[in-house]
């Protein structure tokens, strides 16, 4: 096996690219919706077999243990090829969480099963009614001997209907202040008392679920970190999310579809379209330049500041803007439920709807602007 660490960045990139191009299923490139486990497991197992499932995990835990710079190269190559996200919560959330805060027993129990695909995880953070005010969560865990008894519900749980484990934020001390008294639990989805309700989105997909907990018994040994310290750990996990939400690739992909659509509609040379299209290209190019400065920070192993919220705001609003223009260009086809002519490349309505939640999830753009105003610009109150 090649020592990936020893490769130059360029050689590493080429190695990754060639393997992806050879192995990635063509029909899964740039899917219009988040794929279910039934669809993406083939790729998950390929990555697992290759040993490339967990680039960020240390080697001792079965990860690739490569540098931050090489991790970024992998992300870039995956994005370039249009590789879909897998059911990756075990990889990017649970793994790092346990490696940092888990007991040896927890690591031994869970990490190998993420690597093997035996455990598929989902995330139980948001709650009905809490929305952007994540810390106001009300799902509670009451102590009962060696167990917690969990009652409450979670919402916007991505692909919960695919998962067999969930990592949960629960309130374990109701007397404490809002962000305190929250703990982190690992819970099997087949525990008695758990029910799942898929949420149909406006693009008629069931990516999200609501998960209900009715006296669900969870062994205390599956508490991660200290009791009542869950919030701090959860926040740290969210840290690097915004740089990915801010990647210009999604907007770049959408712009490509806009160009194709404009050609199909015969307007790609109209001066009005060229002007609009050029503006969008320039927006993406400048976002790319800005994004690269944050990637450099990560590559140097430094911590991202709260100003990374800018990336999320720019990229999600640009993505939406591009799909707004797609509807303008599509004429009456803007109203079609399915892709035009059965061709997934011409799917203005679908992509438009897909772009809608990007400004809501991952911390709504209103919340991001609050963060920018207060934590970056130092504005009062």
């Amino acid at each position, binding site marked *: 096996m090649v020592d990936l660490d020893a490769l130059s960045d360029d050689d590493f990139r080429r190695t990754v690219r060639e393997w992806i191009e050879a192995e990635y299923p063509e029909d899964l490139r740039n899917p219009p919706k988040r794929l279910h486990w039934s669809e993406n497991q083939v790729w998950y197992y390929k990555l697992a077999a290759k040993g490339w499932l967990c680039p960020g995990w240390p080697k001792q835990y079965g990860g690739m243990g490569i540098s931050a710079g090489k991790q970024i190269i992998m992300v870039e190559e995956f994005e370039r090829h249009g590789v879909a996200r897998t059911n990756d919560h075990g990889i990017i959330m649970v793994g790092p969480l346990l490696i940092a805060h888990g007991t040896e027993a927890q690591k031994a129990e869970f990490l190998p099963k993420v690597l093997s695909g035996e455990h598929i995880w989902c995330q139980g953070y948001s709650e009905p009614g809490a929305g952007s005010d994540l810390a106001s969560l009300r799902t509670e865990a009451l102590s009962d001997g060696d167990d917690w008894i969990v009652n409450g519900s979670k919402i916007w749980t991505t692909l919960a209907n695919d998962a067999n484990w969930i990592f949960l934020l629960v309130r374990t001390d109701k007397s404490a202040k809002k962000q305190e008294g929250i703990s982190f639990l690992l819970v099997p989805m087949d525990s008695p008392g758990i029910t799942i309700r898929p949420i149909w989105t406006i693009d008629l997909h069931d990516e999200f679920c609501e998960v209900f907990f009715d006296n669900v018994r969870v062994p205390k040994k599956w508490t991660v970190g200290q009791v009542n310290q869950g919030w701090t750990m959860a926040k740290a996990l969210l840290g690097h999310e915004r740089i990915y939400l801010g990647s210009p690739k999604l907007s770049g992909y959408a712009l490509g579809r806009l160009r194709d659509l404009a050609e199909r509609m015969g307007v790609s040379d109209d001066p009005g379209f060229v002007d609009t299209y050029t503006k969008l290209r320039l927006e993406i190019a400048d976002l790319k330049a800005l994004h690269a400065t944050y990637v450099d920070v990560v590559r140097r192993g430094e911590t991202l500041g709260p100003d990374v919220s800018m990336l999320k705001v720019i990229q999600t609003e640009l993505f939406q803007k591009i799909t707004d223009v797609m509807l303008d260009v599509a004429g009456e086809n803007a109203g*079609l439920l399915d892709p035009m002519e059965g061709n997934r490349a011409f799917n203005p309505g679908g992509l438009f709807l897909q772009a809608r939640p990007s400004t*809501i999830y991952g911390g709504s753009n209103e919340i991001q602007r609050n963060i920018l105003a207060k934590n970056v610009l130092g504005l009062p109150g």
Partner: protein
Amino acid sequence: MDDDRTDSIRLIRDSAAGIAPRTGDLRRIRALRFQTPGFDRGVWAQMCEMGWPGLLVAEENGGAGQGMGAYCALAEELGAALAPEPLIGASMCASVLRGTDLSRLLDGSALVLPAWQERANRFDVGAETTITNGRVTGTKLFIPGAGGADLFLVAGRDGLALVAADATGVSVRLEKTQDGGEFGTLVLDGAPCTPVAGDLTEALDQAALAISAYLLGAMDRAFALTLDYLRTRQQFGKPIGSFQALQHRAADLKIQVALTRASVENAAAIWDDGGAGRVAAVSRAKARASDAAMLVCRQAIQLFGGIGYTDEADPGLFLRKAMVLMNMYGSAALHRARFARLTPDEDDI
């Protein structure tokens, strides 16, 4: 506006409330979605009983002899209720049909829908369809409700003709639309037809203005839903409508709704007065309504947050209706360009 006109508009709004209440729930709309023909034949029969397809038709021809002011008020109410019944298409046909063809349409015994469009993003009667010796050949696109039509009023190179939906040489391909309805593509291959005198030029403009009014009604209600949500939904210990950034956004949406209302009602008044600028006024109203409806409905989703993105919440119904209507009878860009072409002098400055 004179008092008679005001009265008849109030009457039509009241009567609309009986069939398509703007404050009613949207269960009826949801139940009809993604089922051919996408509307309720029983409700359509009621609308015919109310005389709505003949609203613009002169009284001597069996219609109500109303003006665009009343028609737009009705379309606005239907938009607020998201009513999917094919009133605007049928009204276009009613404006040119006469005799039994017209009376069958008006009494609801035969639904006639117009088939005029041959290319996307166009706002003129197609010129490829031929009507000769009682046979019609051509392809017509984007016919909403086509799955429920008994006849099509087809625009050809040299005139109009009626074609029965079940005649030989007629095939209809249906594609689902975001609002739960269907676009029909009508393929005519030497199908037998009956010529009809007249043309659709004026009817097209009336339809474009009615669609604008429908969009006005839809955005107005989507905005009202959003305001309710802003007033009641709590986050960080207070109603989200108390956050200034959202308040200012709501103010901006209110402004768009108000401008759309002014634009549509002004265009209807100009139309009814027979002013020279009436066609330009239609373009102005449609451009405003298309853009404003999309803005208001997009923001409704955003302001509802996560729940707004679910199919079970109502804002999505309005957004998806707007997606279907925004470019029908001409997109905002098309109508802006037409406005510039129609009124190049700018004596308005």
